[in-house]
């Protein structure tokens, strides 16, 4: 069994002693996994990250990171973690100097800094703007610099609080791939996002957080099974009346419909439906031109989980 590097138990937090922004949160993160915190704006993701990175202390509950208690061993924890904040954070000097200052703060010597800077300028496509002042960079460039800077030092856990906000599609995919590469080398990632496709691409396990509570934690596949709802099977069929075919299929009327020239079926067992439709189409001398089984997406899961939690169907 993989070792837990983060253990959160009954975490509660309030900023004003009136309203709790986190309510009894408990979860674990295993070594070498990408753990996603998924939730709407204001759900409590950033507060959770601030507590895990020891920026603020929780009002109640216990948090253990790499075997250390956040209330007693903040310094030890911080020496082994990295954080990319949601808000922009830059120094008002050149791109290269930003990286250099960060490396210096982490205690890297000049030679190590130089090597690392060259590597990161290349990976994050910052080479052409290395001498540019950070104040003159576009939002996306600043974001790239902010992320690149965090990789100046080695760490065991990296906290990424909505890191891809402001990045273009190519850079976003580059970053996600770079993160995947680091995870293969043993880095643990805690990743918050409201961009579902990113979580789907990157995360091993996902915690859905809403109104300060963890609604569910599981692997993506298990979440899809639990909350994904029915899958959609679409057919495009020639030489047959779709309304007649619809009546001949043994499917609940609410789960089958015709949209333009397509027959759409919602089902828990898509392969049985495909078999049934093929049989009927053959029987009535029709021809299937095209079919598509749409997998359950994280979006389906998210909407179902959040919907259930808020009484929305």
């Amino acid at each position, binding site marked *: 069994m993989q070792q837990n590097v983060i253990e959160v138990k009954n975490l509660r937090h309030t*900023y004003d002693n009136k309203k709790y922004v986190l309510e009894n949160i408990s979860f674990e993160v295993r070594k070498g996994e990408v753990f996603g915190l998924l939730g709407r704006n204001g759900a409590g993701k950033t507060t959770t990250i*601030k507590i895990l*990175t*020891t*920026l*603020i202390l929780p009002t109640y509950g216990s948090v253990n990171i790499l075997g250390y208690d956040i209330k007693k061993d*903040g*310094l030890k924890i*911080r*020496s082994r*973690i990295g*954080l990319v*904040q949601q*808000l*922009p*954070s*830059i*120094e*008002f*000097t050149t791109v290269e*100097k930003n990286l250099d*200052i960060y490396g*210096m*703060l*982490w*205690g*890297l*010597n000049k030679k190590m800094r130089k090597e690392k800077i060259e590597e990161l300028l290349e990976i994050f496509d910052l080479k052409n703007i290395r001498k540019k002042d950070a104040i003159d960079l576009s939002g996306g460039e600043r974001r790239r610099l902010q992320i690149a800077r965090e990789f100046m030092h080695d760490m065991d856990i990296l906290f990424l609080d909505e890191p891809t906000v402001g990045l273009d599609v190519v850079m976003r995919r580059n970053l996600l791939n770079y993160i995947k590469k680091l995870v293969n080398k043993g880095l643990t990632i805690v990743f918050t996002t409201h961009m579902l496709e990113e979580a789907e691409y990157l995360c091993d396990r996902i915690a859905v957080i809403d109104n300060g509570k963890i609604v569910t934690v599981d692997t993506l596949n298990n979440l899809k099974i639990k909350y994904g709802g029915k899958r959609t099977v679409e057919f495009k069929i020639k030489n047959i009346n779709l309304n007649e075919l619809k009546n001949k299929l043994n499917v609940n009327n609410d789960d089958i419909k015709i949209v333009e020239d397509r027959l759409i079926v919602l089902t828990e067992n898509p392969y049985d439906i495909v078999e049934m439709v093929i049989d009927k189409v053959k029987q009535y001398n029709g021809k299937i031109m095209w079919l598509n089984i749409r997998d359950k997406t994280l979006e389906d899961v998210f909407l179902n989980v959040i919907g259930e939690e808020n009484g929305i169907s």
Partner: protein
Amino acid sequence: MAYPKVIRLILRNLMVNSDPGTWLILVGMPAMFLVFFSYGYGSMFSALGLSYINYAKFLAPGMLAYETLIAGTFSGSMLWFDRRWGSLAQILAMPFTRTDYLLGLILSTVVFAIMGNAILLVITYFLIPGINFTVIGILIMVLTLIIGSLLFGSLMLILGSYIKSQNAYNSVQILMIFFINFASTVFYPAISLPKLLLYLFYVNPLTYIANVMRDGFLNNIKINDLYYIIILTAVSLLLIYIARKSYMRSEIKFE
């Protein structure tokens, strides 16, 4: 081997904040006061048959003292800047304590004050012919400027911790610079003043910093200077303590 943590923070503060604007305020302003006022008031004194050099000799150590106030304001500004641009949270997520960060800010103001004073001394050397410094005089001046910048650095950090908007902070800071500067013996001696003004002068730490600096500069060190240094050190330590407390109390609200 890596530098100690506070040194790394000081280096960072110097790298990030050493732009021409910083140096213009740090050195340019006192240098302008020194040159314009020395010659300007000097011409007035010439009309009375006095040399401008006498006033320049009075004003130069006053400007060195004023420099500690200017350098001190950098600590509050750096705190505000780091908050505004996310660097504060980023640094606090690294292996630094809050105290490391605050000490880094306060000690950076000391370094700024030392560098600014060094440049100002060179200007003074050329402006006032025949001036002679003694080792003990220089030591007293260096000690005073360190204590002065610690004192004002901490004071501005307290201000920066409590004031919630950057515009308000800038306004209060400018007001304080004017008040502390002009209600002190930086530009003129505290003689023949109305009682109320006299009290203001004597509760103002810049008055003592300027007086001790002047005695070191003119090699006229007295036993009172030692007492002033002890009192200023005690006040600085108290303000450093209050600055840390104020920062800790304000932290949650800002981050």
